[in-house]
Protein backbone atom coordinates (compact mmCIF):
# COMPACT_ATOMS: atom_id res chain seq x y z
CA UNK A 1 0.00 0.00 0.00
CA UNK A 2 1.38 3.37 -0.91
CA UNK A 3 0.96 6.30 1.42
CA UNK A 4 -1.33 8.95 0.04
CA UNK A 5 0.58 11.58 -1.88
CA UNK A 6 -0.35 15.02 -0.62
CA UNK A 7 -1.58 17.39 -3.27
CA UNK A 8 0.54 20.30 -2.25
CA UNK A 9 2.03 22.52 -4.84
CA UNK A 10 5.71 23.07 -4.51
CA UNK A 11 7.59 25.94 -6.05
CA UNK A 12 8.61 24.61 -9.43
CA UNK A 13 12.20 23.46 -9.60
CA UNK A 14 14.22 22.22 -12.47
CA UNK A 15 16.57 20.06 -10.43
CA UNK A 16 15.39 16.60 -9.58
CA UNK A 17 14.83 16.10 -5.89
CA UNK A 18 14.17 13.06 -3.83
CA UNK A 19 10.54 12.25 -3.20
CA UNK A 20 7.51 14.39 -3.85
CA UNK A 21 6.62 15.82 -7.18
CA UNK A 22 6.19 19.23 -8.61
CA UNK A 23 2.90 20.29 -10.05
CA UNK A 24 2.27 23.53 -11.82
CA UNK A 25 -0.99 25.32 -12.07
CA UNK A 26 -1.64 26.70 -15.47
CA UNK A 27 -3.16 29.78 -13.86
CA UNK A 28 -0.20 31.87 -12.87
CA UNK A 29 -1.80 33.96 -10.17
CA UNK A 30 0.12 32.41 -7.31
CA UNK A 31 3.37 34.28 -6.94
CA UNK A 32 4.97 31.49 -4.95
CA UNK A 33 5.14 29.59 -8.16
CA UNK A 34 6.77 32.34 -10.08
CA UNK A 35 10.28 31.01 -9.69
CA UNK A 36 10.14 30.14 -13.34
CA UNK A 37 7.49 32.55 -14.44
CA UNK A 38 7.67 36.23 -14.99
CA UNK A 39 4.09 36.27 -13.83
CA UNK A 40 2.83 38.00 -16.94
CA UNK A 41 3.74 35.41 -19.50
CA UNK A 42 0.93 33.39 -20.99
CA UNK A 43 0.69 29.72 -20.20
CA UNK A 44 1.33 28.68 -23.78
CA UNK A 45 4.70 30.38 -24.12
CA UNK A 46 5.53 28.95 -20.74
CA UNK A 47 4.98 25.52 -22.18
CA UNK A 48 7.95 25.75 -24.51
CA UNK A 49 10.17 26.79 -21.66
CA UNK A 50 8.89 24.04 -19.39
CA UNK A 51 9.54 21.38 -21.97
CA UNK A 52 13.10 22.49 -22.51
CA UNK A 53 13.87 23.02 -18.84
CA UNK A 54 12.46 19.80 -17.47
CA UNK A 55 14.00 16.41 -17.99
CA UNK A 56 10.61 14.80 -17.68
CA UNK A 57 7.34 16.64 -17.88
CA UNK A 58 3.83 15.37 -18.41
CA UNK A 59 0.88 17.44 -19.59
CA UNK A 60 -2.60 16.36 -18.75
CA UNK A 61 -6.09 17.47 -17.94
CA UNK A 62 -6.98 18.15 -14.39
CA UNK A 63 -8.74 15.18 -12.88
CA UNK A 64 -7.46 12.84 -15.57
CA UNK A 65 -6.67 9.49 -14.05
CA UNK A 66 -4.41 8.43 -16.90
CA UNK A 67 -2.16 11.30 -15.96
CA UNK A 68 -2.09 9.95 -12.45
CA UNK A 69 -1.00 6.55 -13.74
CA UNK A 70 1.89 8.12 -15.64
CA UNK A 71 2.93 10.05 -12.59
CA UNK A 72 2.81 7.01 -10.30
CA UNK A 73 4.76 4.91 -12.72
CA UNK A 74 7.49 7.47 -13.12
CA UNK A 75 7.62 8.09 -9.40
CA UNK A 76 8.05 4.39 -8.84
CA UNK A 77 11.10 4.49 -11.07
CA UNK A 78 12.68 7.20 -8.99
CA UNK A 79 11.93 9.96 -11.43
CA UNK A 80 10.60 13.28 -10.26
CA UNK A 81 8.21 14.16 -13.05
CA UNK A 82 6.82 17.64 -13.43
CA UNK A 83 3.11 17.48 -14.04
CA UNK A 84 1.42 20.37 -15.79
CA UNK A 85 -2.33 20.40 -15.40
CA UNK A 86 -4.02 22.00 -18.35
CA UNK A 87 -7.20 23.94 -17.91
CA UNK A 88 -9.99 23.31 -20.35
CA UNK A 89 -9.89 26.77 -21.87
CA UNK A 90 -6.16 26.60 -22.51
CA UNK A 91 -6.33 23.09 -23.89
CA UNK A 92 -6.50 23.91 -27.57
CA UNK A 93 -3.71 26.44 -27.46
CA UNK A 94 -1.46 24.21 -25.40
CA UNK A 95 -2.02 21.23 -27.65
CA UNK A 96 -1.03 23.36 -30.62
CA UNK A 97 2.05 24.57 -28.80
CA UNK A 98 3.05 21.05 -27.81
CA UNK A 99 2.43 19.79 -31.32
CA UNK A 100 4.77 22.46 -32.63
CA UNK A 101 7.45 21.48 -30.17
CA UNK A 102 6.96 17.86 -31.06
CA UNK A 103 7.27 18.67 -34.71
CA UNK A 104 3.88 17.23 -35.39
CA UNK A 105 2.06 18.74 -38.34
CA UNK A 106 -0.70 21.05 -37.32
CA UNK A 107 -4.09 20.50 -38.73
CA UNK A 108 -3.50 16.81 -38.80
CA UNK A 109 -6.17 15.53 -36.46
CA UNK A 110 -4.50 12.21 -35.82
CA UNK A 111 -1.04 13.52 -35.40
CA UNK A 112 -1.89 16.05 -32.76
CA UNK A 113 -0.59 15.55 -29.29
CA UNK A 114 -3.02 13.85 -26.95
CA UNK A 115 -3.22 13.95 -23.20
CA UNK A 116 -1.48 12.72 -21.20
CA UNK A 117 1.59 13.81 -23.13
CA UNK A 118 5.01 12.99 -21.78
CA UNK A 119 8.11 14.91 -22.82
CA UNK A 120 11.52 13.49 -22.05
CA UNK A 121 14.66 15.51 -22.62
CA UNK A 122 12.76 18.22 -24.44
CA UNK A 123 11.23 15.87 -26.96
CA UNK A 124 7.80 14.32 -27.18
CA UNK A 125 7.96 10.83 -25.79
CA UNK A 126 4.38 9.74 -26.13
CA UNK A 127 1.41 8.78 -24.04
CA UNK A 128 0.83 6.25 -21.29
CA UNK A 129 0.93 3.37 -23.74
CA UNK A 130 4.43 4.21 -24.90
CA UNK A 131 5.65 4.69 -21.35
CA UNK A 132 4.34 1.26 -20.36
CA UNK A 133 5.57 -0.42 -23.53
CA UNK A 134 9.10 0.94 -23.20
CA UNK A 135 9.17 0.11 -19.54
CA UNK A 136 8.24 -3.51 -20.20
CA UNK A 137 10.90 -3.87 -22.86
CA UNK A 138 13.40 -2.23 -20.53
CA UNK A 139 14.08 0.72 -22.81
CA UNK A 140 12.52 3.38 -20.62
CA UNK A 141 15.06 3.51 -17.80
CA UNK A 142 18.10 3.97 -20.06
CA UNK A 143 16.24 6.73 -21.92
CA UNK A 144 15.44 8.45 -18.66
CA UNK A 145 19.03 8.19 -17.55
CA UNK A 146 20.18 9.70 -20.79
CA UNK A 147 17.82 12.60 -20.28
CA UNK A 148 19.23 13.08 -16.82
CA UNK A 149 15.89 12.30 -15.22
CA UNK A 150 17.47 9.47 -13.28
CA UNK A 151 20.68 9.59 -11.40
CA UNK A 152 21.37 5.96 -10.70
Amino acid at each position, binding site marked *: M*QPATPYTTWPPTTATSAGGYTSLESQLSDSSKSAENDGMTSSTSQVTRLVSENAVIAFGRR*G*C*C*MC*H*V*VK*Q*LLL*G*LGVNPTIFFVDEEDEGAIIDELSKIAGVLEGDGNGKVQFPAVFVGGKLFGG*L*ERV*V*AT*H*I*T*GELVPMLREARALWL
Partner: protein
Amino acid sequence: MHSTTTQYVASRRMGLYEPMHPIGMWGDFKGNGCPNASASTILQVETNLDNQSEDTSHGTLGTPSKYDQEASKPVDKVLRRLAQNREAARKSRLRKKAYVQQLENSRLRLVQLEQELDRARQQGLYAAGGLDISQLTCSGALNSGSAAFEVEYGRWVEEQNRQVNELRNALHSHMSEEELRLLVDGGINHYFDLFRMKETAAKADVFYLMSGMWKTCVERLFLWIGGFRPSDLLKILSQHIQPLSDEQVLNVYHLTHACQQAEDALSQGMDKLHQFLAESVCRAQLREVNYPQMEAAIENLEALERFVKQADHLRQATLQQMSGILTIRQSARGLLAMGEYFERLRTLSSLWTKRNSEPA
Protein backbone atom coordinates in the same frame (compact mmCIF):
# COMPACT_ATOMS: atom_id res chain seq x y z
CA MET B 1 -66.07 35.61 -49.55
CA HIS B 2 -65.23 32.13 -48.59
CA SER B 3 -64.42 31.26 -45.11
CA THR B 4 -62.96 28.01 -44.04
CA THR B 5 -64.60 27.46 -40.74
CA THR B 6 -66.33 24.21 -40.18
CA GLN B 7 -69.98 24.48 -39.79
CA TYR B 8 -72.80 22.14 -39.86
CA VAL B 9 -74.69 22.26 -42.98
CA ALA B 10 -78.26 21.50 -43.23
CA SER B 11 -79.82 20.77 -46.45
CA ARG B 12 -83.42 21.34 -46.22
CA ARG B 13 -84.06 19.56 -49.37
CA MET B 14 -81.84 16.61 -48.75
CA GLY B 15 -82.38 16.43 -45.07
CA LEU B 16 -78.73 15.75 -44.58
CA TYR B 17 -76.59 16.94 -41.76
CA GLU B 18 -72.92 16.63 -42.12
CA PRO B 19 -69.80 18.47 -41.09
CA MET B 20 -68.70 21.01 -43.55
CA HIS B 21 -65.35 20.37 -45.09
CA PRO B 22 -63.11 23.35 -45.20
CA ILE B 23 -63.63 23.89 -48.84
CA GLY B 24 -65.53 27.03 -48.94
CA MET B 25 -68.37 28.65 -47.28
CA TRP B 26 -70.75 31.07 -48.56
CA GLY B 27 -70.76 34.20 -46.65
CA ASP B 28 -72.78 36.06 -49.11
CA PHE B 29 -75.59 34.39 -50.82
CA LYS B 30 -77.60 37.35 -51.82
CA GLY B 31 -78.16 36.05 -55.20
CA ASN B 32 -74.78 37.18 -56.39
CA GLY B 33 -73.71 33.63 -56.11
CA CYS B 34 -70.09 33.64 -57.01
CA PRO B 35 -69.51 30.39 -58.74
CA ASN B 36 -67.91 27.86 -56.52
CA ALA B 37 -65.61 25.78 -58.59
CA SER B 38 -64.75 23.21 -55.95
CA ALA B 39 -67.15 20.92 -54.30
CA SER B 40 -69.96 22.88 -52.98
CA THR B 41 -72.61 21.45 -50.90
CA ILE B 42 -75.87 22.75 -49.87
CA LEU B 43 -75.18 25.53 -47.44
CA GLN B 44 -77.13 27.24 -44.87
CA VAL B 45 -74.98 29.68 -43.06
CA GLU B 46 -77.39 31.13 -40.62
CA THR B 47 -80.75 30.16 -39.37
CA ASN B 48 -82.24 33.45 -40.44
CA LEU B 49 -81.77 32.22 -43.91
CA ASP B 50 -84.70 30.05 -43.29
CA ASN B 51 -86.73 33.06 -43.95
CA GLN B 52 -85.28 33.40 -47.34
CA SER B 53 -87.26 32.30 -50.23
CA GLU B 54 -86.76 28.97 -51.76
CA ASP B 55 -85.15 30.57 -54.67
CA THR B 56 -82.62 32.40 -52.59
CA SER B 57 -81.87 29.37 -50.59
CA HIS B 58 -81.29 27.59 -53.78
CA GLY B 59 -79.00 30.39 -54.56
CA THR B 60 -77.08 29.46 -51.46
CA LEU B 61 -76.47 26.13 -52.89
CA GLY B 62 -73.19 27.47 -53.99
CA THR B 63 -73.79 27.08 -57.59
CA PRO B 64 -75.83 29.85 -58.95
CA SER B 65 -76.49 28.26 -62.24
CA LYS B 66 -79.93 26.85 -62.44
CA TYR B 67 -79.04 23.68 -64.19
CA ASP B 68 -77.21 22.51 -61.12
CA GLN B 69 -80.36 22.25 -59.16
CA GLU B 70 -80.77 18.69 -60.31
CA ALA B 71 -77.07 18.06 -60.70
CA SER B 72 -76.40 19.21 -57.14
CA LYS B 73 -78.21 16.19 -55.83
CA PRO B 74 -75.89 13.54 -57.27
CA VAL B 75 -72.90 15.91 -56.96
CA ASP B 76 -73.56 16.03 -53.29
CA LYS B 77 -73.51 12.26 -53.08
CA VAL B 78 -70.36 12.06 -55.11
CA LEU B 79 -68.61 14.60 -52.97
CA ARG B 80 -69.60 12.80 -49.85
CA ARG B 81 -68.32 9.52 -51.21
CA LEU B 82 -65.04 11.12 -52.19
CA ALA B 83 -64.62 12.52 -48.71
CA GLN B 84 -65.32 9.14 -47.21
CA ASN B 85 -62.82 7.54 -49.54
CA ARG B 86 -60.17 10.00 -48.49
CA GLU B 87 -60.84 9.25 -44.87
CA ALA B 88 -60.72 5.53 -45.43
CA ALA B 89 -57.48 5.80 -47.35
CA ARG B 90 -55.92 7.85 -44.60
CA LYS B 91 -56.94 5.34 -41.95
CA SER B 92 -55.64 2.52 -44.08
CA ARG B 93 -52.25 4.22 -44.42
CA LEU B 94 -52.04 4.68 -40.68
CA ARG B 95 -52.89 1.05 -40.06
CA LYS B 96 -50.26 -0.03 -42.54
CA LYS B 97 -47.65 2.15 -40.85
CA ALA B 98 -48.47 0.66 -37.46
CA TYR B 99 -48.26 -2.83 -38.88
CA VAL B 100 -44.87 -2.22 -40.47
CA GLN B 101 -43.58 -0.76 -37.23
CA GLN B 102 -44.72 -3.86 -35.39
CA LEU B 103 -42.98 -6.05 -37.96
CA GLU B 104 -39.73 -4.16 -37.53
CA ASN B 105 -39.84 -4.56 -33.77
CA SER B 106 -40.55 -8.25 -34.10
CA ARG B 107 -37.63 -8.62 -36.46
CA LEU B 108 -35.24 -7.04 -33.99
CA ARG B 109 -36.57 -9.23 -31.23
CA LEU B 110 -36.05 -12.28 -33.43
CA VAL B 111 -32.41 -11.37 -34.01
CA GLN B 112 -31.91 -10.95 -30.30
CA LEU B 113 -33.52 -14.29 -29.53
CA GLU B 114 -31.40 -16.01 -32.15
CA GLN B 115 -28.26 -14.59 -30.60
CA GLU B 116 -29.34 -15.71 -27.15
CA LEU B 117 -30.08 -19.16 -28.47
CA ASP B 118 -26.73 -19.33 -30.16
CA ARG B 119 -25.03 -18.32 -26.98
CA ALA B 120 -26.95 -20.83 -24.91
CA ARG B 121 -26.07 -23.55 -27.38
CA GLN B 122 -22.41 -22.64 -27.18
CA GLN B 123 -22.53 -22.65 -23.46
CA GLY B 124 -24.32 -25.95 -23.45
CA LEU B 125 -21.23 -27.39 -25.14
CA TYR B 126 -19.07 -26.36 -22.23
CA ALA B 127 -21.20 -27.83 -19.49
CA ALA B 128 -18.20 -29.95 -18.57
CA GLY B 129 -15.73 -27.25 -19.49
CA GLY B 130 -17.24 -25.07 -16.86
CA LEU B 131 -19.17 -22.05 -18.03
CA ASP B 132 -21.28 -20.76 -15.21
CA ILE B 133 -24.95 -21.66 -15.43
CA SER B 134 -25.80 -18.26 -14.07
CA GLN B 135 -24.35 -16.86 -17.24
CA LEU B 136 -27.15 -18.39 -19.22
CA THR B 137 -29.73 -16.48 -17.29
CA CYS B 138 -28.18 -13.19 -16.37
CA SER B 139 -25.08 -12.57 -18.36
CA GLY B 140 -25.92 -8.90 -18.34
CA ALA B 141 -25.30 -8.59 -22.03
CA LEU B 142 -27.52 -5.62 -22.47
CA ASN B 143 -26.72 -4.68 -26.01
CA SER B 144 -25.96 -6.45 -29.20
CA GLY B 145 -22.26 -5.57 -28.98
CA SER B 146 -21.92 -7.40 -25.70
CA ALA B 147 -24.03 -10.29 -26.92
CA ALA B 148 -21.85 -10.59 -29.99
CA PHE B 149 -18.74 -10.53 -27.82
CA GLU B 150 -20.09 -13.34 -25.66
CA VAL B 151 -20.65 -15.47 -28.72
CA GLU B 152 -17.20 -14.67 -30.05
CA TYR B 153 -15.63 -15.37 -26.69
CA GLY B 154 -17.35 -18.73 -26.54
CA ARG B 155 -15.69 -19.61 -29.82
CA TRP B 156 -12.42 -18.22 -28.55
CA VAL B 157 -12.47 -20.54 -25.54
CA GLU B 158 -13.27 -23.46 -27.78
CA GLU B 159 -10.28 -22.67 -29.98
CA GLN B 160 -8.14 -22.11 -26.90
CA ASN B 161 -8.92 -25.58 -25.57
CA ARG B 162 -8.10 -27.08 -28.94
CA GLN B 163 -4.77 -25.25 -29.08
CA VAL B 164 -3.88 -26.33 -25.57
CA ASN B 165 -4.45 -29.96 -26.52
CA GLU B 166 -2.36 -29.52 -29.61
CA LEU B 167 0.49 -28.04 -27.57
CA ARG B 168 0.33 -30.87 -25.08
CA ASN B 169 0.58 -33.46 -27.83
CA ALA B 170 3.32 -31.52 -29.57
CA LEU B 171 5.49 -31.32 -26.47
CA HIS B 172 5.05 -35.00 -25.74
CA SER B 173 5.80 -35.98 -29.27
CA HIS B 174 9.03 -33.97 -29.38
CA MET B 175 7.98 -31.96 -32.40
CA SER B 176 10.56 -30.01 -34.38
CA GLU B 177 11.30 -26.46 -33.39
CA GLU B 178 9.89 -24.98 -36.60
CA GLU B 179 6.55 -26.70 -36.15
CA LEU B 180 6.52 -25.82 -32.49
CA ARG B 181 7.22 -22.20 -33.36
CA LEU B 182 4.08 -22.16 -35.47
CA LEU B 183 2.04 -23.40 -32.55
CA VAL B 184 3.62 -20.90 -30.18
CA ASP B 185 3.05 -17.97 -32.52
CA GLY B 186 -0.51 -19.15 -33.02
CA GLY B 187 -1.04 -19.34 -29.30
CA ILE B 188 0.29 -15.86 -28.64
CA ASN B 189 -1.70 -14.40 -31.52
CA HIS B 190 -4.79 -16.06 -30.13
CA TYR B 191 -4.39 -13.98 -26.98
CA PHE B 192 -3.88 -10.90 -29.11
CA ASP B 193 -7.14 -11.73 -30.86
CA LEU B 194 -8.86 -11.69 -27.49
CA PHE B 195 -7.46 -8.27 -26.68
CA ARG B 196 -8.76 -6.96 -29.99
CA MET B 197 -12.18 -8.44 -29.31
CA LYS B 198 -12.19 -6.84 -25.90
CA GLU B 199 -11.35 -3.45 -27.31
CA THR B 200 -14.44 -3.62 -29.50
CA ALA B 201 -16.56 -4.89 -26.63
CA ALA B 202 -15.33 -2.07 -24.39
CA LYS B 203 -16.67 0.44 -26.89
CA ALA B 204 -20.06 -1.27 -26.85
CA ASP B 205 -20.36 -1.61 -23.08
CA VAL B 206 -17.33 -1.13 -20.89
CA PHE B 207 -19.24 -2.05 -17.74
CA TYR B 208 -20.19 -5.41 -19.14
CA LEU B 209 -16.55 -6.11 -19.90
CA MET B 210 -15.38 -4.94 -16.52
CA SER B 211 -18.02 -6.98 -14.73
CA GLY B 212 -16.37 -10.10 -16.03
CA MET B 213 -19.76 -11.70 -16.50
CA TRP B 214 -18.47 -13.15 -19.72
CA LYS B 215 -16.04 -15.25 -17.67
CA THR B 216 -16.72 -18.09 -15.28
CA CYS B 217 -17.23 -17.33 -11.60
CA VAL B 218 -13.82 -18.43 -10.36
CA GLU B 219 -12.06 -16.54 -13.16
CA ARG B 220 -14.05 -13.52 -12.07
CA LEU B 221 -12.54 -13.78 -8.62
CA PHE B 222 -9.17 -12.92 -10.08
CA LEU B 223 -10.50 -10.11 -12.25
CA TRP B 224 -8.35 -7.03 -12.59
CA ILE B 225 -9.51 -4.24 -14.89
CA GLY B 226 -11.47 -6.52 -17.15
CA GLY B 227 -9.03 -9.44 -17.33
CA PHE B 228 -6.28 -11.40 -15.68
CA ARG B 229 -3.46 -9.79 -13.73
CA PRO B 230 -0.24 -9.72 -15.76
CA SER B 231 1.75 -10.45 -12.63
CA ASP B 232 -0.35 -13.57 -12.00
CA LEU B 233 0.47 -14.65 -15.51
CA LEU B 234 4.17 -14.36 -14.90
CA LYS B 235 3.86 -16.33 -11.69
CA ILE B 236 2.16 -19.18 -13.56
CA LEU B 237 4.72 -19.10 -16.33
CA SER B 238 7.80 -19.01 -14.14
CA GLN B 239 6.92 -22.36 -12.59
CA HIS B 240 6.94 -24.17 -15.90
CA ILE B 241 9.77 -22.70 -17.88
CA GLN B 242 12.69 -24.00 -15.82
CA PRO B 243 15.54 -24.37 -16.36
CA LEU B 244 16.50 -20.83 -17.32
CA SER B 245 19.88 -19.49 -18.29
CA ASP B 246 21.43 -16.80 -16.12
CA GLU B 247 20.65 -14.14 -18.68
CA GLN B 248 17.07 -15.34 -18.84
CA VAL B 249 16.77 -15.27 -15.09
CA LEU B 250 17.85 -11.63 -15.08
CA ASN B 251 15.52 -10.70 -17.91
CA VAL B 252 12.57 -12.44 -16.33
CA TYR B 253 13.33 -10.70 -13.08
CA HIS B 254 13.36 -7.29 -14.78
CA LEU B 255 10.18 -8.08 -16.66
CA THR B 256 8.42 -9.19 -13.50
CA HIS B 257 9.52 -6.04 -11.74
CA ALA B 258 8.50 -3.72 -14.58
CA CYS B 259 5.18 -5.49 -15.00
CA GLN B 260 4.42 -5.14 -11.30
CA GLN B 261 5.23 -1.45 -11.38
CA ALA B 262 2.98 -0.81 -14.36
CA GLU B 263 0.24 -2.88 -12.77
CA ASP B 264 0.48 -0.93 -9.53
CA ALA B 265 0.40 2.37 -11.40
CA LEU B 266 -2.75 1.31 -13.22
CA SER B 267 -4.32 0.14 -9.96
CA GLN B 268 -3.61 3.48 -8.38
CA GLY B 269 -5.09 5.20 -11.41
CA MET B 270 -8.26 3.18 -10.93
CA ASP B 271 -8.38 4.15 -7.25
CA LYS B 272 -8.05 7.77 -8.31
CA LEU B 273 -10.89 7.29 -10.76
CA HIS B 274 -13.08 5.89 -7.99
CA GLN B 275 -12.22 8.88 -5.87
CA PHE B 276 -12.94 11.42 -8.60
CA LEU B 277 -16.15 9.69 -9.55
CA ALA B 278 -17.37 9.61 -5.96
CA GLU B 279 -16.51 13.27 -5.57
CA SER B 280 -18.25 14.40 -8.73
CA VAL B 281 -21.36 12.36 -7.88
CA CYS B 282 -21.37 13.89 -4.38
CA ARG B 283 -21.14 17.37 -5.83
CA ALA B 284 -23.89 16.89 -8.39
CA GLN B 285 -27.29 17.79 -7.13
CA LEU B 286 -29.34 14.77 -7.82
CA ARG B 287 -32.74 16.28 -7.42
CA GLU B 288 -32.68 17.21 -11.05
CA VAL B 289 -30.14 15.11 -12.74
CA ASN B 290 -28.91 17.16 -15.62
CA TYR B 291 -26.04 16.54 -17.96
CA PRO B 292 -23.76 19.50 -17.14
CA GLN B 293 -23.54 18.59 -13.49
CA MET B 294 -22.88 14.98 -14.19
CA GLU B 295 -20.42 15.82 -16.93
CA ALA B 296 -17.42 15.33 -14.71
CA ALA B 297 -18.76 11.97 -13.63
CA ILE B 298 -19.46 10.96 -17.22
CA GLU B 299 -15.90 11.86 -18.20
CA ASN B 300 -14.64 9.58 -15.48
CA LEU B 301 -16.79 6.75 -16.77
CA GLU B 302 -15.47 7.32 -20.27
CA ALA B 303 -11.98 6.97 -18.84
CA LEU B 304 -12.82 3.36 -17.97
CA GLU B 305 -12.58 2.37 -21.60
CA ARG B 306 -9.04 3.71 -21.74
CA PHE B 307 -8.15 1.85 -18.58
CA VAL B 308 -9.29 -1.44 -20.03
CA LYS B 309 -7.30 -0.68 -23.16
CA GLN B 310 -4.17 0.11 -21.17
CA ALA B 311 -4.60 -2.98 -19.00
CA ASP B 312 -4.95 -5.18 -22.08
CA HIS B 313 -1.98 -3.44 -23.61
CA LEU B 314 0.07 -4.30 -20.53
CA ARG B 315 -1.04 -7.94 -20.78
CA GLN B 316 -0.08 -8.03 -24.42
CA ALA B 317 3.28 -6.31 -23.89
CA THR B 318 4.13 -8.68 -21.05
CA LEU B 319 3.29 -11.74 -23.13
CA GLN B 320 5.30 -10.43 -26.03
CA GLN B 321 8.32 -9.60 -23.96
CA MET B 322 8.22 -12.99 -22.27
CA SER B 323 8.09 -14.80 -25.58
CA GLY B 324 11.16 -12.81 -26.60
CA ILE B 325 13.10 -13.93 -23.55
CA LEU B 326 12.20 -17.62 -23.75
CA THR B 327 13.19 -20.29 -26.21
CA ILE B 328 10.51 -21.81 -28.38
CA ARG B 329 10.25 -24.89 -26.27
CA GLN B 330 10.05 -22.87 -23.09
CA SER B 331 7.37 -20.65 -24.64
CA ALA B 332 5.40 -23.73 -25.64
CA ARG B 333 5.57 -25.07 -22.10
CA GLY B 334 4.57 -21.67 -20.79
CA LEU B 335 1.59 -21.39 -23.09
CA LEU B 336 0.48 -24.87 -22.18
CA ALA B 337 0.76 -24.05 -18.50
CA MET B 338 -1.30 -20.89 -18.94
CA GLY B 339 -3.92 -22.61 -21.01
CA GLU B 340 -4.28 -25.46 -18.55
CA TYR B 341 -4.46 -23.06 -15.64
CA PHE B 342 -7.38 -21.13 -17.08
CA GLU B 343 -9.04 -24.35 -18.17
CA ARG B 344 -8.84 -25.59 -14.60
CA LEU B 345 -10.37 -22.36 -13.33
CA ARG B 346 -13.29 -22.88 -15.68
CA THR B 347 -13.69 -26.50 -14.61
CA LEU B 348 -13.61 -25.46 -10.98
CA SER B 349 -16.36 -22.95 -11.72
CA SER B 350 -18.55 -25.58 -13.23
CA LEU B 351 -17.92 -27.99 -10.37
CA TRP B 352 -18.89 -25.31 -7.92
CA THR B 353 -22.03 -24.45 -9.82
CA LYS B 354 -23.10 -28.05 -10.02
CA ARG B 355 -22.42 -28.49 -6.34
CA ASN B 356 -24.58 -25.51 -5.54
CA SER B 357 -27.44 -26.44 -7.78
CA GLU B 358 -27.71 -29.98 -6.47
CA PRO B 359 -30.43 -30.61 -3.90
CA ALA B 360 -28.99 -30.80 -0.38
